[in-house]
């Protein structure tokens, strides 16, 4: 998800107009879709070029937004609450949260006529998890029993998960390596969608003309960089059938260009807008705008492996000295939500103001700084090059300088691959920028991978056995609801130890044209294009 988002940001920065768009005009247009009422019409959607249109391979936002209309999985997220509920699954049950039995509803088919049965899921998951297929979503199967074997270098191409077993045509079992109460919730991710046999037989063909099982099906082939057209699938057995007759994803590289197209009446929905034009867009759109905190989390990591940062007072002092809202307003025209904790506001289990040290309090900051003994030497602040991080990181540096009189320097010259390698090897000698996006709608996704001892994306080197124990307790709880208090306890420990400085969560903005009758947004799976009605 993050790759494309980041690339988009880079492209936007590089191509930012020297001129702000001229005023006047507006999103009004004559629709060539000539239709009215509840359903029908052609919904024209802004998209950037997806990476893949096969669920096992696609892990970027533009791909997923197309896949969610083409495919359906075992679980979907409630349109209002975001809570996971059964979709293609008849039941998902377990006694110990370790061995799960999944029954698939009968009657669903792929657009090529193949049946959506237990095999449709098993073949997709075994294909995705096998290292030899180098699928981007392999990572999401890391809780399955047999994952390590599937990811070892000498795995055979036809090796399957030891934890997956077919019971009958519509029933199969999944064994996890360790109990996990949030298992059902993760199954709504598009990486767990079923795949037809014909699709795996010719992956390339299926990528160009997907064979889905959802409320929409592909019309023709993917016109790379131009558009993707979906038409309503009349054979779809589910209840949430598509509203518009066709969905046309118009592909743009540059958000500013897409916004010009929107203003010229060429687009009906634009999810993500050019941030530098946000003020003007808000003014023009009136009530045809939707804004909500997004799940993308930006933080400043602290190298706990460096002796100076192994000092909680210093870490808290740094965090308290940063006025997040001021930076957001001054540099990003208010396009972010300041973080007051470690978990996205959209998530079940989120609480406000978890982190006391995440608010701006200069007095307390100075006090704690005195207590900590201070920072010796020149402070180095790190970010990757060319992705628009220089300005805000400098604001952070200036804040620390004026609060504590520390001299600082920016290191923003490393390209992203090099930068990430340095993070992987614990090579930073000062605070560093990194980000995170959730893998599944369980708050644990913001905790264990980033702060668990030796966890895959723990770049600050934080190690706390109590934290690990709290996460484990949550994983083993009887249900997700019962797991949340344990996860919250773990989050509290982070607020106490502050291994990283939480900065902000993104702010999602979606706008739509006069042609749109009702706009639908799902806090977990984003815009529900299939449910949007046209006038």
């Amino acid at each position, binding site marked *: 998800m993050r790759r494309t988002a980041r690339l988009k940001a880079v492209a936007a920065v590089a191509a930012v107009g*020297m001129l702000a768009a001229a005023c006047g*005009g507006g999103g009004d247009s*004559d629709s060539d879709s000539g239709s009215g009422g509840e359903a029908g019409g052609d919904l024209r959607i802004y998209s950037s070029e997806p990476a893949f249109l096969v669920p096992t391979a696609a892990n970027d936002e533009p791909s997923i937004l197309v896949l969610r209309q083409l495919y359906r999985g075992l679980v979907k997220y409630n349109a209002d609450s975001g809570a996971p509920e059964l979709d293609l699954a008849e039941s998902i049950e377990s006694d110990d949260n370790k061995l799960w039995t999944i029954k698939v509803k009968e009657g669903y088919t792929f657009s090529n006529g193949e049946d959506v049965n237990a095999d449709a899921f098993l073949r997709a998951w075994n294909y995705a998890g096998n290292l030899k297929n*180098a699928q981007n979503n392999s990572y999401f199967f890391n809780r399955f029993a047999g994952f390590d074997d599937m990811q070892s270098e000498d795995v055979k191409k036809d090796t399957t998960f030891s934890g997956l077993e077919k019971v009958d045509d519509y029933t199969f079992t999944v064994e996890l390596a360790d109990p996990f109460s949030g298992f059902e919730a993760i199954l709504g991710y598009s990486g767990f969608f079923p795949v037809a046999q014909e699709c795996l037989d010719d992956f390339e063909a299926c990528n160009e003309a997907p064979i889905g099982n959802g409320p929409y099906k592909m019309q023709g082939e993917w016109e790379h960089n131009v558009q993707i057209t979906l038409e309503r699938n009349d054979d779809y057995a589910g209840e949430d059938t598509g509203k518009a007759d066709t969905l046309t994803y118009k592909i743009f590289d540059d958000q500013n*260009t897409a916004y010009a197209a929107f203003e010229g009446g060429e687009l009906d929905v634009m999810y993500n807008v050019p941030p530098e034009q946000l003020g003007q867009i808000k003014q023009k759109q009136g009530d045809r705008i939707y804004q909500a905190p997004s799940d993308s989390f930006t933080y400043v990591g602290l190298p706990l492996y460096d002796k100076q940062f192994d000092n909680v007072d210093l870490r808290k002092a740094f965090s308290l000295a940063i006025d997040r809202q001021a930076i957001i307003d001054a540099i990003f025209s208010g396009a972010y939500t300041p973080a007051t904790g470690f978990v996205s506001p959209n998530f079940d289990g989120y609480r406000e103001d978890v982190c006391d040290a995440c608010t701006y309090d200069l007095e307390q900051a100075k006090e704690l700084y005195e207590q900590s003994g201070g920072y010796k030497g020149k402070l180095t602040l790190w970010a990757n090059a060319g992705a628009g991080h220089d300005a805000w990181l400098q604001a952070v540096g200036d804040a620390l300088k004026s609060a504590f009189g520390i001299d600082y320097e920016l290191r923003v010259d490393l390209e992203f691959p090099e930068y990430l390698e340095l993070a992987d090897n614990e090579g930073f000698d000062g605070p560093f920028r990194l980000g995170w996006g959730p893998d599944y709608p369980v708050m644990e996704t913001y905790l264990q991978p980033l702060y668990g001892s030796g966890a895959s994306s723990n770049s600050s080197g934080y190690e706390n056995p109590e934290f690990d124990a709290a996460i484990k307790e949550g994983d083993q709880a009887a249900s997700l609801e019962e797991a949340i208090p344990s996860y919250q306890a773990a989050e509290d420990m982070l607020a106490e130890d502050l291994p990283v400085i939480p900065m902000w969560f993104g702010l999602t903005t979606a706008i739509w044209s006069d042609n749109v009758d009702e706009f639908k947004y799902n806090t977990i799976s984003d815009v529900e294009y299939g449910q949007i009605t046209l006038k």
Partner: protein
Amino acid sequence: MGTYVVRRLLQFIPTTLGAIFLLHYLTSLGIQLTGNPARALFGDRRPSEAQLGALTEALGLADPCLTRTGDPCVGLYFDRLQKIFLQFDFGINFNRRPVTDIVADALPYTFKLVVIAIIFQAVVGITAGVLAGLRAGGFFDYFVKVSTVLLISVPVFVLGFVVRDIINVNVGNKLREAGTLPDWFTFGVMSPVYKPDYPIASLVVPGLVLGALSLATTARLTRTSILENVRSDYVRTARAKGLAPKRVIGVHTLRNSLIPVITYLGVDFGGLMGGAVVTEGIFGVPGIGREIFRATISKEPSVVLGIVTLLVLVFLIVNLIVDVLYAVLDPRIRYD
């Protein structure tokens, strides 16, 4: 003439090989200096070594020379040459699409765009140049001078944004609302972005913007050349023979004056193919400029190599055609 063309074609081979080597060396050096681009695809989610290895291998970046800074990767170079020339395989991009497919998809858009630009610049530029040259010092001469200087001094990203946001969006919206003009104009030509429903019409405005940059040079080159030739002996002879002024200007003067202009247009054709990056970005044209911009940002060596090699070939071929045209325009030039 035949042997000349064959000789020129043979010269293509070392030029192309050299260009490919340079591209290969620079893209390899880029990876050596800034790290394995496959790692960036995983983003903040750290991959296991096996995962990273599998993806690196799948993307064709597994050659160990790519980790040794300064290594020219000669082995990889010959591998690439072999694949390119024996199997016509330029590799894949990071979404595992063959580069040949990407180029085949994107090239027609850029080609159409550049042809529109060249036609615009040839027709308007040469006409303006001739008129200015014939009435040197007159009103029209100054008009051309001032307007071309204005065009030259506005960078394309400014011109493009202004045209798109003011003319195509604002004026366009008024026209679309009024609905008096035909659809191909209001929804095609006036569309702020490229539209597959109007594949040519929606490329006209981007083409004009692209051509506007070189328009000035074409006009002034024609003007100078005309001024020079109007005073030459053969024109005086033609006049003295009593030929009609139309024929003196249209056939004798113009034909000779066009030699430098044709050279310029030829070189410019190649230049515009590669230089359409900004224009394509502003008007959302899915051409090779956009593709190469994206490939450069995400460091996809095969895409950069494939597209730039293609541009090199375009340059070579267009220049060959221009050289052959000299002989047609000026009978004194012979290639035997």
